């Protein structure tokens, strides 16, 4: 598409400023099941989002039909959209920052140069090695998923930024059975360096997660000391990330409203949004508004320091944007609870009676970032005198997320990021309400 023509026509129609956001993705997905290629998907797509200021309001449109014939549709849609908006919020098309921090290694050409066959072979190997770990493993879905993502932002104020990232995830989903009970486990590695995919490690860990859980039963209801494992903690944090968005605060749907400077968790806890994390496709030097991204500790030693902002929310609060303006709203980049000092095994061995919660289910439904209350299906292990006694399942764990952060007694050193680029180390928590079978 001829963007100069688009910009010129927009000006003719009294669109004050206009910005285009072009995304081009190529993807490869491979899955092996029962020694056969279960899935092989390749794709090549391009999408265009356009926003423009008309009469003080921001109009938007998006399309996958990208050619010069679409220019009139784009301009008409931007105007129609802007005309119907009655929010009084000030809107911006940004001219750019003077400095953008360079982030190295976001795109690794070598990953794309590894041929499809080698990637398929890796997944075959992964399935085979996982099956070989234990006789009780009934089935393994091994997968490899790779994406190359190109972004370009251009606007009528002269901004022209682009980035290219690539990333892949290799992992296994394991089903184990002992005849009477069936359990699942998952493990994966995400990177853009092909040699990082340590398949022996993934196979071992994925298999262990499924087999260790065999024979899991419920427990007696009550309050238990809990070690919330890294992945489970990350999934719970993911359900509450919106609390840290200035948009939620300004909409009055964040529990953290008015709490900047207050203690919101134990001193042990720091929560970071890091756009410069290595090998993460979420990393980058600018956001969708063209603002330079920043590393920030939103919670520092238990104290709330601020919120994630885009240009609009920043203006309202009279602060600067934090470079979190993504997809017309606010999103985190790489968001995590900073790792602490405690070794995971030590956190377990110092527990008299308690639970390890290794998995939480239904976080999209059983949590509320408005109230912070959660009630979730969980599974894990019962610990007595510092030793794992047996696996547990079919329990629910309930509480309030802010109360949980205040009840953290130890932060482990085992930070793990999930698929949504939200991460946590394992956390030891004084007490959580567990509902079991009696």
């Amino acid at each position, binding site marked *: 598409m001829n963007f100069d023509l688009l910009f010129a026509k927009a000006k003719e129609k009294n669109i004050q400023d206009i910005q285009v956001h072009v995304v081009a993705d190529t993807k490869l997905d491979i899955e092996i099941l029962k020694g056969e290629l279960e899935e092989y998907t390749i794709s090549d797509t391009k999408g265009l989002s356009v926003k423009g200021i008309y009469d003080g309001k921001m*109009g938007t449109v998006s*399309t*996958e039909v990208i050619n010069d014939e679409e220019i009139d549709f784009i301009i008409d849609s931007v105007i129609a959209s802007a005309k119907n908006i009655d929010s009084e919020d000030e809107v911006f098309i940004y001219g750019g920052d003077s400095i953008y921090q360079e982030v190295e290694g976001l795109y690794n050409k070598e990953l794309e140069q590894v041929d499809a066959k080698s990637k398929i072979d890796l997944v075959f190997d992964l399935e085979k090695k996982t099956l070989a770990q234990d006789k009780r493993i009934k089935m393994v879905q091994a997968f490899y998923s790779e994406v190359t993502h190109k972004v370009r932002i251009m606007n009528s104020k002269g901004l022209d930024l682009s980035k290219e990232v690539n990333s892949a995830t290799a992992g296994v989903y394991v089903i184990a059975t002992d005849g009477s009970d069936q*359990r699942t486990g998952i493990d994966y590695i995400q990177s853009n360096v092909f040699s990082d995919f340590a398949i022996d490690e993934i196979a071992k860990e994925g298999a262990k997660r499924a087999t260790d859980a065999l024979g899991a039963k419920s427990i007696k209801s009550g309050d238990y000391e809990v070690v919330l494992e890294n992945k489970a903690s990350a999934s719970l944090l993911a359900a509450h990330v919106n609390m840290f968005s200035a948009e939620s605060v300004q909409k009055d749907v964040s529990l953290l409203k008015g709490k900047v400077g207050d203690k919101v968790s134990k001193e042990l806890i720091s929560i970071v949004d890091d756009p410069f994390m290595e090998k993460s496709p979420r990393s980058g030097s600018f956001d969708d508004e063209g603002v330079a991204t920043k590393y920030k500790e939103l919670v520092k030693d238990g104290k709330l320091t601020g919120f994630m902002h885009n240009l609009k929310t920043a203006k309202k609060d009279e602060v600067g944007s934090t470079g979190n303006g993504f997809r017309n709203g606010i999103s985190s980049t790489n968001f995590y609870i900073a790792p602490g000092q405690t070794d995971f095994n030590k956190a377990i061995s110092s527990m008299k009676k308690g639970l390890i919660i290794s998995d939480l289910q239904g976080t999209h439904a059983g949590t509320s970032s408005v109230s912070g209350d959660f009630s979730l299906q969980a599974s894990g292990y019962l610990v007595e005198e510092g030793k794992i006694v047996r696996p547990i399942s079919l329990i629910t764990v309930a509480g309030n997320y802010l109360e949980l952060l205040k009840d953290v007694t130890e932060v482990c050193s085992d930070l793990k990021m999930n698929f949504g680029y939200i991460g946590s180390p394992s956390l030891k928590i004084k007490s959580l309400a567990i509902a079991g079978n009696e």
Partner: protein
Amino acid sequence: MLERKLITKVLEEALTTNADFSEIFIEDKSQASASMLSSKVERVNNAKTFGIGIRVAKGFHSVYGYTNSREESDLLKLANDLAQSFPGSQEKRNVELGEMKKGSKHKIKILPASVDMKEKIALLKRADKAAREYSDVINQVMVNYQDYEQKVWIANSEGNYVHDVRVRTRLAIASVASNETSKQQGFNGPGGFYGFEFYTDVINVEEAAKEASRIAEVMLTADHAPSGKMPVVIDNGFGGVIFHEACGHSLEATSVAPGMSVFSGKKGERIASPLVTAIDDGTIENAWGSANFDDEGHPQKRRVLIKDGILNTFMVDKLNAIRMNDELTNSGRRESYRYAPTSRMTNTYIDNGESTFEEIISSTEYGLYAKKMGGGSVNPATGDFNFSVGEAYMIRDGKIAEPVKGATLIGTGADALLKVDMVGNNLLRAQGMCGSASGSIPTDVGQPTIRVSEITVGGRKAAN
């Protein structure tokens, strides 16, 4: 959208190696959405989607690719790349494309594209006003409007060629009630396979908005739910999400065919209480999950999944039918051209029984009445499910007592189905979005009021 000749060429190119089946899915979709917050229109957006998906298979093994390009050279290259997954040289095979079939079961009176955005915005304003006026404790309301027209063309190497148009619209209202100590949200999101007539002929916008506020207000004063095992009465309508998650997904060929479902190999066996008959029906006129054809180009149909507690049929797509050596039930669905189709639900519900709502409540001495279910999920391999309850009350001495919040129901689908001990006569369906292997698709859930003799309720208080 693509010339017949080009479609044929692409399907033939995909068969130049050892593959025995090829399929093309062309999608052209226009979507409009608008949202309101704090009584202000915040966002209005038009979106155009256009893309093409090509699937190539040998037996039940398949590969898939997609692109936004409609250029002949790009499409032929994609077809050829995919064909390379089935090495072996073949003579050129001709594809004879049949007449293009069209469906017309679901009538649309007013195409959304013909309605000015202003009229759509007016709905937001009406819903916002009604939701706020419902009660003083409602101090935030979010309303979202969405409509789309999805045109698809599906053709395969067997010569089947269909065109279908899916028009859907939905209005979603979230009301937040708050006092000094608590905030609670109520949600209601009616939708259907309709054009703009949905808002005059089918639903009352004000009533829909008030329902969201009613739930938020009730839950504001609710105490924490107790925990432990107890009888649970699950109300009609969205209560059917429990069947959808706990059993429906495990009856899809996607999990049955590879033997990952707890119901694999159980056709003809009792898997539910004799009171349970469950149906998946993609033909219900203008229902949210209906269509004329599935996304593999087969006519939609009605499937009796469970008959009087006995497993009758699975939901099966084309390739899984080969894999399972079972009957194809025309259940292939996908969100868009970005997904290969697989077996999915349409409008899935437990059929009417004989008890009245009053009989079910009055015969329950102590338990939980789950009036509005929230969302949930299930692990198809273990059948473990979890659901949040949006609006719940205790049942004491056969009467509905105080409201309780934060309840979660957990259990296994196989177990819960066997423990259904009362089924009401007030079947109702409600709308949801279902996420799975082939993306997020519209589905109806539904049931009459049912009672499960025992479910584990997870709350924050000890049972009393």
